[in-house]
């Protein structure tokens, strides 16, 4: 019996559900920081989803994609928050 292979489709489905909830908050969010927070959650969840897909297909190619998403997502969150905070990004 292969436990990890049995668990992986359910885990990918659960992460997809989490991404759907974050997308709902992104589209609905009453204030701008809500939307930025939803984008933040969305990229963190998509990173976990990429790693699970890499486990599922038994390949290491997805780590680089997850790393790029992590770095660009952090930069995007900081830039958007800075824009709300100061009205300018690079001062």
């Amino acid at each position, binding site marked *: 019996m292969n436990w990890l292979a049995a*668990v992986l489709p359910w885990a990918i489905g659960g992460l997809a559900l*989490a*991404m759907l*909830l974050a997308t709902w*908050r992104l589209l609905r969010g009453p204030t701008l920081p809500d939307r930025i927070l939803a984008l933040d*959650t969305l990229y963190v969840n998509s990173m976990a989803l990429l*790693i699970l897909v890499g486990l599922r297909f038994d390949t*290491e190619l997805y780590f680089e994609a997850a790393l790029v998403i992590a770095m660009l997502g*952090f930069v995007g969150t900081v830039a958007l*928050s800075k824009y709300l905070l100061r009205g300018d990004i690079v001062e």
Partner: protein
Amino acid sequence: MSELPFWIDVLAAVLVVVGVVFALVGSIGLAKLSDFLKRLHGPTKASTLGVGCVLIASMLYFAGTGRPALHELLISLFVFLTAPVSAHLLVKAAMRLDPRLRPPDPPAVTDVTSREPKRDAAR
């Protein structure tokens, strides 16, 4: 996937399930809670922990199949470093947009000089 040792298989499966449950709880908190500062709690803690669990499971799997890699450690270190920074910046942005979110000042300490009248005189 068949050459994986049994305990690595079970441990990686448990870690994947725990990580996905944490990420799901974080997103449910993001979707269902009522205030922005309450909503900030869910994703910034639970989702980060969920990603950490998934990354540890991935490290176990690739170490078990004979291809040990340190990419996952890099990603988890990066996520654990950057999540508090982005949460802090989000709170600052939210407090600038809506000053009512700022917590009230702590109660002022009154009569400092009258309790210790000789401190200034001794200097």
